[in-house]
Each structure stands twice: as structure tokens, then as C-alpha cells.
């Protein structure tokens, strides 16, 4: 008789794993925190497909459950680097949030990935109200929602509750941008709440929220479950809109310049690999694993290809550039994009505008570190900043153009915004 070799699985599920703490002399172990999202692809691919190892970097990837944890564990030296929302380093530079310790972003993890989903019920109401056939663009959908909100208000109904991920997130600013483009005031006409992305489908089907803006694959999951209807994707709002970055402590970058350079080279190679459509099935399979996204490989693959079912009725949409991991300098940390994030923080009353505040933002994104590692290549931009949204294929949904040199003039062009209230006094208790 022969025995089948098998072990009893003793692993116990835990949301937060402990990172390795031993770092021996000479090895370039980099502890990296990440949130299970498709836009962590470049970081995961660097570790899984040998790009980091080739540069002599060993990535210790630690899955986490909240952006607040990511921020704190980076600040408290539990991580060396982390997968972060692009607005997080900007918020830190401005002293915003409950732990604004310095974070810099030397590398952007690519473009794309977000979408806005409404509950099927709310979308059907938009359809009925504005006579939508289902093929309308994101702006038309926003305007239809405005009509429904006006009707709700005059009927005395509760206004829609919309979920996003974090106060300093691309999702918050994109959702607000889309709403405002449709004439909806995000602070008066709807209620914005934070919902952890894996819980969005449940929250939607339970009626706790009426829509949300989160990253992939959660919008598609909501449609697959028959509870959500995608009404806009990031590309509809602004294709170049910054999404996730690699964040690190400035002091870690200063103490480990060689490791950081190698890491950037590894991430660059991984990003180029992720951009090749033929590699995306293999990428999807790894991302889908339990230790990463713990999601359906089939959905992740379709998401990576930008093939969506946007409505449970089977309506399809293809967005070929839904994820750009590398092309067109997708990894370059444009300081103009950090300034755009700052402009949105001002627009929505998170911080007041001042020229010196705008200068503070310059410490958040570090194109100089990106160039140090990859500078000799011809596709590395020469400038740190540019006018955003001016290119034909890279416009904002409302046709505005962002000039980082004149933020007050840019903001003066928006009718819908929220002013910054006064901050309370500080005393020791």
C-alpha cells in the first residue's frame, strides 16, 4: 500500500501578517505593504516573476487591510516601501490626516483601474428619468443622476449615499469630479462615506449605499453579482489621473539609495512586462491567488484586458487602456499630478490654498529619484511638470485644463466647490 502524501493544513487565516524583521548584512530585503487590488500588479509581478531578484532585491510582500494601516506601518518602520494611494504622500506633505509623517513617491504604479458603480435600482431610475438607452457616456450618466437627485429632493426622499475608499484617495477626487461635472455637489446633494472595497457589493445589495467609486476588480464583482451598474471609468473622467504610487520614508530613501535605485529598475521592468497583453493571463492567475487578491482569475483577467460587463443585463464595454502599467511614462511621478491632487484637496475644503502650501507639495513626488535610476533612457521625461489634460486623448470629462503654475485660476473656473473652514485651536490636556 502506498500513502498519498498530504499534510493537514494548519494555516490560520489572518488579515494582517507579520513582516520579516531580520535583515542580514548585505542582503537587500525590502519589506513592502500592499492592499489586495489589481493596481498592485507591478509590485506583485516584480516579486513573482523574478524582476526584483534579477536586481538583487528580495521583496517581502505583506498584505494589509486598510490605507490607514499602510500609512502607519510605513511611518513606524514596519515597512520600507508601500503600495499607496497617490494622494497619501501629498496629504502627508501638507500635514493632513491622523498620522502625517513624511512620505515620498519616487515611482507611480501606472494609470487606470477605477470605476464608478451605481446600484442597479438607482441606475434604472436614471434611465427612466433621462431616457437612457444604456450606451451613454459618463457625463450623460452624471447629468441623469442629477435629475434623479432633484426629483428625490422634491419628493422628500433620502439622498443617495455613495461609497469611496479613503479621504485622500483618487476615488474620492474622481467621484467628486464626476458628480460635479454633472452638476451634483458632492457635499450637499449626496452623502459620501468610506466603504472598504471588498465590502462594496455587500453594502450595495444591503442598500447601505447606492453607489461607489473603487478600484478593480470590485466594480466588476458588483455587476457579476447583479447588484451594480458601472456608469463611468477612470478614463472617462481623466485618463492620466494618478492612481497608486510606491511610497517610502525620505530617510529610508536617503539611507538606501542603491536599493531604491535597483527597486525602481525592477519595478520598471515588471511594469513593462505587465503591459504586454499576452502576459496578462499569467498575471491574472497570480493576482487571483489567496495570498494576493483572493478573487476569480477569470474576472481579474477580463479586468486587466479592459473587457467589462457594465450592466447585469449583459451590456458590454471595452476600455483597451483600462490599465496602463508602463506605456507613455505611466510610472513617472509628475509633480504636476501631485499639484492636481493638491488642487482637488483645496477644491473640496481639505486644505486652504497658499503659494507656500503649493510649494510644500513639491516634496511629495520625487521625479529626481526616478531619473537617478532610469535617467539614461530616452523615454524618461525631461520636465517634472506639464499642463495636464491638454492632450487630445487625455482630456478631463468637463474639458478643463490644469495648469500647475496657476492653481487659483484653475479653481476659479469651477462653480461647484467647498470652502475650507477654520481649524480649531490646539492646547495640551
Amino acid at each position, binding site marked *: 500500500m502506498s500513502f498519498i*502524501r498530504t499534510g493537514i493544513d494548519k494555516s490560520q487565516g489572518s488579515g494582517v501578517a507579520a513582516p520579516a524583521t531580520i535583515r542580514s548584512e548585505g542582503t537587500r530585503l525590502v519589506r513592502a505593504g500592499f492592499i489586495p487590488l489589481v493596481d498592485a500588479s507591478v509590485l506583485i509581478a516584480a516579486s513573482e516573476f523574478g524582476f526584483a531578484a534579477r536586481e538583487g532585491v528580495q521583496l517581502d510582500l505583506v498584505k494589509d487591510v486598510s490605507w490607514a494601516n499602510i500609512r502607519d506601518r510605513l511611518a513606524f518602520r514596519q515597512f520600507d516601501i508601500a503600495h499607496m494611494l497617490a494622494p497619501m504622500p501629498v496629504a502627508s506633505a501638507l500635514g493632513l490626516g491622523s*498620522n502625517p509623517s513624511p512620505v515620498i513617491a519616487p515611482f507611480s504604479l501606472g494609470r487606470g483601474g477605477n470605476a464608478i458603480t451605481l446600484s442597479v435600482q438607482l441606475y434604472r431610475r436614471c434611465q427612466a428619468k433621462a431616457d437612457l438607452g444604456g450606451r451613454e457616456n459618463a457625463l450623460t450618466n452624471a447629468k441623469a443622476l442629477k435629475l434623479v437627485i432633484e426629483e428625490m429632493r422634491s419628493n422628500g426622499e433620502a439622498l443617495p449615499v455613495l461609497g469611496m475608499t*479613503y479621504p485622500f484617495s483618487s476615488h474620492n477626487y474622481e467621484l467628486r469630479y464626476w458628480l460635479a461635472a454633472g452638476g451634483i455637489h458632492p457635499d450637499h446633494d449626496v452623502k459620501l462615506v468610506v466603504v472598504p472595497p471588498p465590502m462594496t457589493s455587500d453594502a450595495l445589495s444591503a442598500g447601505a449605499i447606492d453607489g461607489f467609486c473603487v478600484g478593480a476588480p470590485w466594480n466588476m464583482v458588483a455587476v457579476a453579482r447583479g447588484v451594480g451598474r458601472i456608469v463611468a471609468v477612470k478614463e472617462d473622467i481623466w485618463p492620466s489621473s494618478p492612481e497608486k504610487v510606491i511610497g517610502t520614508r525620505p530617510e529610508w530613501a536617503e539611507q538606501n539609495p542603491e536599493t531604491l535605485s535597483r527597486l525602481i529598475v525592477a519595478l520598471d521592468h515588471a511594469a513593462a512586462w505587465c503591459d504586454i497583453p499576452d502576459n496578462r493571463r499569467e498575471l491574472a492567475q497570480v493576482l487571483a491567488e489567496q495570498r494576493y487578491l483572493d478573487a476569480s482569475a477569470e474576472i481579474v483577467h477580463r479586468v486587466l484586458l479592459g473587457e467589462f460587463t457594465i450592466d447585469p443585463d449583459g451590456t458590454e464595454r471595452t476600455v483597451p487602456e483600462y490599465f496602463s502599467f508602463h506605456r507613455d511614462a505611466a510610472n513617472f511621478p509628475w509633480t504636476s499630478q501631485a499639484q492636481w491632487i493638491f488642487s482637488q484637496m483645496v477644491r473640496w475644503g481639505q486644505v486652504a490654498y497658499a503659494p507656500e502650501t503649493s510649494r510644500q507639495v513639491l516634496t511629495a513626488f520625487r521625479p529626481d529619484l526616478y531619473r537617478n535610476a532610469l535617467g539614461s533612457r530616452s523615454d524618461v521625461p525631461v520636465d517634472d511638470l506639464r499642463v495636464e489634460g491638454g492632450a487630445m486623448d487625455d482630456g478631463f470629462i468637463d474639458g478643463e485644463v490644469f495648469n500647475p503654475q496657476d492653481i487659483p485660476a484653475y479653481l476659479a473656473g469651477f462653480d461647484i466647490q467647498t470652502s475650507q*473652514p477654520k481649524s480649531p485651536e490646539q492646547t495640551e490636556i
Partner: protein
Amino acid sequence: MHAQKSGMKTALSIMIFDENRIRASIIEEGLREAGHDRVVVIHDIVGLARQIEVIGPDVIVIDIETPNRDMLEHLFQLTRSVRKPIAMFVDRSDSSSIEAAVEAGVSAYVVDGLKKERVKPILDMAVSRFKAFSRLQQELADAKSALEERKIIERAKGILMKSRKLSEDDAYALLRQTAMNEKKKLADIAQSVVMAAAILEG
């Protein structure tokens, strides 16, 4: 979080947010024993925002594994009239207590400006109670798995006794010998036997 007038040293108001009721009550008890009588325990995220607004805690102790921390961040961003809460620790140079807290799974918010000697004992208490709780949980899991292992070994013995016509002692000896040869745990080998039998039968 409520603003308090400087100089007035009222008892600190502490909120424990933990979906695990048992762990929350263990921490609550510890804090009460240490003389804190303004302790509130919240289990459910629904209504948490309102509770924070009404109670205005000076310290919030929260499980680090809950994704709801991001919801709190949003809440703190919105409530501007109140004191600014800061994440986790009063003294960020104290890296050993930070590490201990993260390892124990504790996170906390503390109103800015609160003296660290007032907060540290609270956090230390939460950390030690979190640790005690996971130790208990581990002991329980170990006891459970020891029981499971014994059950599976019994089943494997029974299978071998029947299929190989062995005595109970010989069946056990065969399992042990195989485990030693294959450098595996006895329970793992027993599991293989049970699986193999199930497949052959099925």
C-alpha cells in the same frame, strides 16, 4: 472628539471598537480595574460615527485587522469642530512599544495634545489584553487540533486493521514507522491513509 479646557484634568473617555465581543470585554475589564470608569465598548460599525460624535472619546482603541479604520479616517477628516485625533502613538520614538502594539494587533487614536503619560498606560493595557486574548485563542485552537489529530489517527488505525488485517498495536506501529521514514507527523500520515481509503472506496 471633544475639546477640553486646558488645566482641567477630567478622567479620560475611552472607546473600544472591536467586532470581537469577548476581546472587547477583556480590554474593558482591564481598563476598569485600572481605575478608568469612562469606557464605552462598540461592536458594530453601524452608528459608530454617531457614537464618536456623541461620546467624544479622548482615546479610541481599535483592532488593527479591521478595514474600518479607513472609515474612521474619513470621519476625523469631516468632523472639523473637534480636536484632531492622531494615529496610534503619543511617542513615535518609542519603537518597541509601537512594534509590540502592531504585533498584538492593536491600533489606537488619541486626541492631539494629550500628555503621553496619561495615554501610555491605556495603550499598554490594551496591548497586553490583546496578547492575552490571542494566546487564549491559540491554546483553544491547539487543543482542538490535538483532538482532531487523535480522531484521525484512530480512523487510520481502523482502516489499516481492516484492510491489512493488523492488530491495533501493529497498525499504530506501521503508521509510526511510515511517519519516521517519511519525516512527517503521525497525524499527516494518518490523514493520507484516510484520504487514500476514501479515494479507493469512492
